[in-house]
């Protein structure tokens, strides 16, 4: 049945990568070159070649992912291999360097590789933990159902407000209109800040009305809570106000869940904006590294 890219085929690529790493490490430790270990020894060259080939293989995943007719393995198999062999590649590249770092193009390539792997690790973390978290926020609701429920809450509130007073109707209509559903550009999705606002003091002189933050429907709830029974409202109106408070509370919860879900969805995408360009930079740096090494041989 279902298996994730982590435990794909009983950790097949994890085992392959583990064994490869172990062999590399043992060989490195046992190797006694005449000069201190570096990329120029026979082992250095071998590891370098392996690491470079691995990097190319890892980059090919980007192409395979988009080749929907390809019969070379499945996307999940490729991703599983990509993750485990990517980790192994960093180890092999590190051993290849023999821990010689400096201010040069070779170190740039290495640093880029570390960054690519690091962003990849974040990606793995995100892929493993966010879908479940997203699902918890979402419950069994689809995004469209969230929006429908929010719209329903708004229309029930308005219907109720109409029975109270025109000011109340206007207050709630404005509140509904200025609700921030959590969409917008990627930055806004990631920040996940509720930028809903509320226009207070409607009906008074234009200068007296003010626009305040209505994050988590707090301003609305407060305004509703400040209505005192007995002064302007009858008993019936009080129960209506209570109902309005309930509706506002439910809306706040829904908005929060929707925003969190949107944030997770954005987090699931954002790392690729780092991972892929860094990978391209790495490929370029790797080419320069290889060319310069052979040029100055």
């Amino acid at each position, binding site marked *: 049945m279902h298996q994730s890219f982590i435990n794909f085929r009983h950790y097949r690529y994890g085992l392959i990568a583990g064994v490869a790493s172990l062999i590399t490490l043992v060989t490195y430790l046992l190797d006694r070159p005449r000069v201190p270990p570096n990329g120029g020894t026979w082992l250095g060259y071998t590891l370098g070649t392996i690491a470079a080939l691995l990097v190319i293989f890892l980059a090919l995943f980007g192409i395979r992912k988009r080749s929907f007719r390809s019969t070379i393995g499945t996307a999940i198999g490729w*991703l599983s291999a990509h993750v485990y062999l990517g980790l192994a590649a960093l180890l092999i590249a590190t051993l290849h360097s023999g821990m010689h770092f400096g201010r040069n193009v070779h170190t740039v390539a290495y640093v880029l590789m570390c960054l690519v792997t690091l962003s990849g690790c974040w990606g793995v973390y995100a892929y493993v933990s966010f879908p479940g978290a997203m699902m918890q926020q979402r419950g069994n609701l689809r995004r469209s159902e969230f929006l429908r429920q929010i719209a329903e809450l708004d229309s029930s509130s308005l219907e109720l407000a109409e029975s109270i007073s025109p000011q109340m109707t206007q207050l709630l209509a404005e509140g509904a209109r200025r609700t921030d559903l959590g969409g917008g550009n990627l930055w806004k999705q990631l920040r996940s800040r509720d930028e809903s606002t509320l226009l207070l003091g409607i009906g008074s002189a234009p200068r007296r009305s003010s626009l305040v933050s209505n994050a988590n429907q707090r301003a609305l709830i407060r305004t509703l809570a400040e209505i005192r029974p007995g002064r302007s409202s009858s008993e019936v109106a009080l129960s209506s106000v209570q109902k309005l408070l309930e509706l506002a509370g439910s809306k706040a919860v829904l908005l929060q869940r929707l925003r969190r879900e949107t944030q997770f969805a954005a987090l699931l995408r954002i790392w690729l904006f780092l991972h892929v360009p860094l990978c391209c930079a790495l490929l370029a740096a790797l080419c320069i590294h290889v060319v310069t090494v052979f040029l100055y041989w």
Partner: protein
Amino acid sequence: MLDSNFDLVIVGAGPGGLSAAARAGQQGMSHVLLEAGGAHANTIQQYQQHKHVMAEPSVLPLRSDMEFAAGRREAILESWERGISRAKVNIKYHCEVTAIRGARGNFEMSTKSGVSIRGKHIILALGVQGHPRRVTVPGGDLPCVQYTLESADALRGETIVVVGAGDAAIENAIALSRSNSVILLNRNSGFPRAKDANAARITRAISAGRIKCFMHAEVRSVQASDARANGRQASDNSAGAPYRMVISTQEGERTLAFHRVIARLGAIPPRQLVESIGVRFLSSEADALPELSSQYESTVPGLFVIGALAGYPLIKQAMNQGFEVVEHLLGRAVAPADHDILRDKFRILRGGSDVERIVSLIHKGLPIFRGIQMLALRELLLVSRVVTPGKRSSIFARGDYASSIFNVLRGEVHLEAGGGAPMILRGGQLLGEMSLISGRPHETSALAGADCILLETPHSAIRKLLRTEQSVRAYIDTVYSLRALRLLLMPHASPETIHALSKAVSLHRFAPGAEIFKEGDPIERFYLVRSGSVALSRRTGEQDTVVAYCAANSFLDALGCLSGETTRSLNAKSMVATEALSIDHASFKALLKADARLAAKMDAERTEQLTQYAHMQARPKAGNVFSYLMSHGLGEATSVLVIDETLCVGCDQCEKACAATHEGVSRLDRSAGPSLHSLHLPTSCRHCEHPHCMRDCPPSAIHRLPNGEVYIDETCIGCGNCEENCPYGVIQMAEKTPKTSLFEKLMRTKPAETVKTAVKCDVCASLKGGPACVRACPTGAAIRIHAEDVLELARQRAVALE
């Protein structure tokens, strides 16, 4: 011309009548074509505008002096109009025949207008539409009451009362509800006369409030509103409805204001007229057909019946028959239109050129077809094929999905089940009936013997026959019982024992969700599920915990029946429409005692079921997951996409892959569909055991491959029946624009007309590696499973949730 004598009088100017008259006209035969209405082809005139009319069966050549090819209603009517003048057809409109007397050579017909016509021969091409049943209450003759609906789009903003509960009423009500306010009046409480899909659609529309419906309602009177009656300006009425009707409901009488009534109360078939002449019918049932010779001559010599009234509802068939009857009357030997096609099919048989003899041999030799009319058999043979598999070659393999049944014409077939000696089938015997009934893969493998000749008939043709022919139904039921008892229960028993046992078998049908038995019921019968699936559950506290699942060809609660209990300890509920065979428990117990091998087999079954119970009982959550999956139709799925939401990152690679491999149109909608327990069922084809989409496909464009895949081929005419019949909403109508050359584009000679065709998941049959959606999922969230895997999926999910 009236009060005169003709060689041939044709009654009814539908396709059959027109074709007969055109032939007579061409050949200079003295004839008259009498049409009750004011135009030719009344039924087609009443089709909605621009309706695509089909020319089925496509294999059958057209024999007529009238042109006919599939196309728009308007084009066809126009071409017939031209044909009438070209062939010098003597057509008389508004000439309704009310009585026919006399005999061959001297028939006399009276018409409604009082004139009488004499003729030597008569062709009745009346159709079955007859006259619509009318609203007979006071005011029923007001102009606001109409019996047809040409175009629903032409009406907007009206309040329309639709009367009736059949397909026509439902289809009209739904089409009108888009731009009008519709009230449906139903004399009964449900929609038993309607097609399942229509019944489901109308029920949805009523519960969603799009259509208002009164059940047990009847029209009492119709009248113009007072405003109208008082003769006020029409503009005053535009706000209010101009008519009112009084209806009776269970709660008493009510008054409805409305603009228009569409009464779709069915039609009165013209059987009475036909019978009054002395034509014998095959039975007394309302939809029985008249007894006809192979030249369509009725039991009254000289009187011929063709078209829908003779049991041939398709346009092309009726046209061919009209032509053939006239040729026959002109004294020319005419072979039926299908003669050449059948001769080609029978070529491999000895003496195959004598089509009539072979057809009659098949009719006599195959018990399944013995009870059906010769003409119906010919129709079936048109879509069947004669196959000659070599000795020891496979006819079908165990585990393959079936799309046809086979009849042994000659030689023998070896049917091999899991164990025991193969069953040998000889000439006249049927194979493939178990898959036909269960919709599941073959339980047996069939190998051809020496000199084996088979007749292969597609499921779609047999299903059509099953709906209308009781004898075919009864035969298949009997064969199924015998084979199921033999193959599934007692492979070792003698044919006599099986035969005796089959006499005690009864057949039960259960609607989806029906209770078959419940805890505490006495065990009276031992059931074998024949089609559909059943969930067994146990009540623990407040809720039912599902403990087992029985698919087709499995025994229901064998445990209870085998444990010596007298009452049921489980509830059994059908998950989808289900059929089951049963024998009474006492006889079954006696059988167990007498047959040690059966007892051993059942003991193994018992152990397996107990193991399953233990797993499921320990995890009530698995039962919940299972119930959720089953409630969304997974009980009939052969390949359904299930997404694990804890793995899905929402990258939509599945949709992208689907679109990339299917001309840019994704056949699945990942985000749509239900979710529960982190399992999401996206809107995508499930490849059902009994595909709902295949049920009503006019060009038979939907097929199933041995691997279970259901696909739509390029003969799809875009009628949308499959889209409506699919309960899971997985078929979409995609618009395809035919390719135009650069020259055509530059010249803009004709605006390219888009063609609608149905598209759905084909499990990427053309791709080597299997479904692209699953192969493209990088996180392993998307998998495809079979109904049999649902229980295991539920169990694994329950473990993950704990």
